[in-house]
């Protein structure tokens, strides 16, 4: 004989069912949140990087000085609109052409030239790259939109210096020390230096808003010279600051794509054949390889790295009601 269900039993059953549904809903919500967190990337992600490369290009959002106090054996400046020497015999020059003036200064052995800070106008793009010659680097600055009203920079020289310039080709005596001032041309300026001492470390950071590690390679095909842009990375380590302990190693030639929101080029080190970039940045995009695989950390990774055991416990607690609900549903029909 079937036992008649009492109203109290029905109420109890309804309460139990509601509790199960609520628990299931909470569990599903937690699971959905976890799934979402695993798919949503941290933006901007904080990254720090130490990359050894043969070239780096960056853009500065505001006027700054590429602060160098660099002892050089040879300095070549291309594209200056004015050259103001302070030595007898070498007259000041003014560029009448859009290409500007080319000036090369080479110190006698044992002595040195000092390259002062290079002013970088706001929005200018800068490329620093090694050349085929040992200890020689090229700094190329492109102003946006023009270099008008950008202050000049100077090279301090001492003693006899071999000079090749538009109005001078010979040895100039700079005595105990004289400056040669250079002014920017209309659009761009290139400074090539042969370091006297390596490594050279820049001492002050630069604020940047774009960064690339690439270099242009031209294949000397006599019929159709081809140009390719290749990764300049020799090796590197990218550290994701949002996920403590997570590092990404960059092998030689790895493509690195960074979409910076803001960054600080903390140090630039030049040695015999390459340069090393120490970067701290917040990036909206960070990808590697030719497929541009995103390496931004997910929100779940970030949560896991910060919450650790708590997140595991929370997940277990979320899974348990799901299992419980499913079991009850299966056995009770």
């Amino acid at each position, binding site marked *: 004989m079937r036992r008649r269900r009492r109203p109290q039993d029905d109420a109890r059953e309804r309460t139990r069912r509601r509790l199960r549904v609520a628990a299931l809903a909470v569990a599903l919500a937690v699971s959905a949140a976890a799934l979402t967190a695993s798919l949503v990337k941290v933006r901007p992600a904080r990254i720090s990087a130490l990359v050894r490369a043969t070239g780096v290009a960056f853009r500065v959002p505001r006027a700054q000085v590429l602060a160098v106090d660099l002892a050089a054996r040879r300095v070549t400046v291309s594209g200056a609109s004015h050259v103001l020497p*302070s030595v*007898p015999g070498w007259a000041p020059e003014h560029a009448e052409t859009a290409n500007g003036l080319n000036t090369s200064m080479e110190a006698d052995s044992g002595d040195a030239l000092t390259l002062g800070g290079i*002013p970088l106008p706001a929005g200018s793009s800068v490329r620093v790259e090694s050349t085929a010659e040992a200890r020689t680097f090229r700094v190329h600055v492109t102003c946006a939109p023009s270099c008008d009203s950008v202050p000049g920079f100077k090279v301090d020289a001492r003693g006899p210096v071999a000079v090749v310039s538009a109005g001078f080709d010979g040895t100039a005596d700079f005595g105990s020390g004289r400056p040669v001032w250079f002014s920017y041309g209309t659009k761009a300026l290139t400074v090539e230096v042969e370091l006297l001492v390596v490594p050279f470390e820049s001492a002050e950071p630069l604020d940047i808003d774009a960064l690339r590690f690439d270099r242009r390679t031209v294949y000397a095909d006599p019929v159709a010279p081809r140009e390719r842009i290749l990764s300049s990375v020799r090796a590197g380590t990218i550290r994701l600051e949002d996920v403590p302990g997570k590092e990404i190693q960059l092998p030689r030639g790895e493509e690195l794509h960074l979409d910076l929101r803001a960054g600080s080029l903390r140090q630039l080190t030049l040695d015999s054949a390459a340069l090393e970039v120490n970067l701290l940045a917040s990036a909206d995009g960070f990808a590697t390889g030719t497929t541009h695989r995103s390496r931004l950390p997910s929100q779940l990774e970030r949560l896991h790295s910060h919450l650790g055991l708590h997140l595991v416990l929370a997940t277990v607690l979320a899974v348990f009601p799901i299992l419980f609900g499913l079991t009850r549903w299966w056995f009770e029909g």
Partner: protein
Amino acid sequence: MLRIQLRGRAALPPAVLTLLLALGTPGTAAAQQACDPLPTDASDPLRYQRLGDRCEGTVVRLMSSTVLFPVSLTANDASLASPPNGPVVLSWPRARGSGVRLRVVTLHRGVNYRLDLARPAADTAYRWDTSRARRAGATAVPVGALAWTTLSIFRQPMPVLLPLTVGAGARRRDYLLTLVPQEDLRTLRISVARLDAGGTREVPLVTDELLRLGPYPANSPIRVPVPGVTEPGLYHVIVSGERRRAGAAGPAVADVWMLHAPPPAR
């Protein structure tokens, strides 16, 4: 004070706060509307900011982009020490440039104060309300004071220093150029040349004269009397230092163009 950092091999600027940049920028006084983006402490009520016609206040640090750089060219011993109540008068010779910029910085460790202002070319004096400087402690320490305009030299716009007279101090017989080295220097030499009347070449007056003002420790102001300045005109002053640092290093050179003119009519 003017704190010049010496870190590693080179102590160079974080930003565009330098004489190299500031003095190197051609332009009119009117164009100098915005204050330089100097690092300041936002919680400091005396921080560097625009105050009426000038930018004035304390900053976190003041730096330069060169190893040896000028901070002052004065016709008297620039000092705001124990100023009388009320403003201090800064005066300079009249120049035909497009405008005049003035800068006062403290030269004492622990007091990072700076004043910047732009004046029309017709002006030859400025009455400076020093109340903020006094509160910042700048009036109790040595200061460097620079005034400059932009003139065309060798077809190039160049900053030209105008010797300043600060306050009511008696004028010196020669001008006093104050430099700050960012590294220890072993020796210091000075060269002075005058731009000839045609403006086409420099006439050497003093060449590589050894200065006996040492020692020259890093970050300590060096007050250099400028020799050979007699006739009115434009002078090119070059001071070169030999670094004490071991190993190969280039020279440390500071060069300024300055105007020698009769004092302004009062």
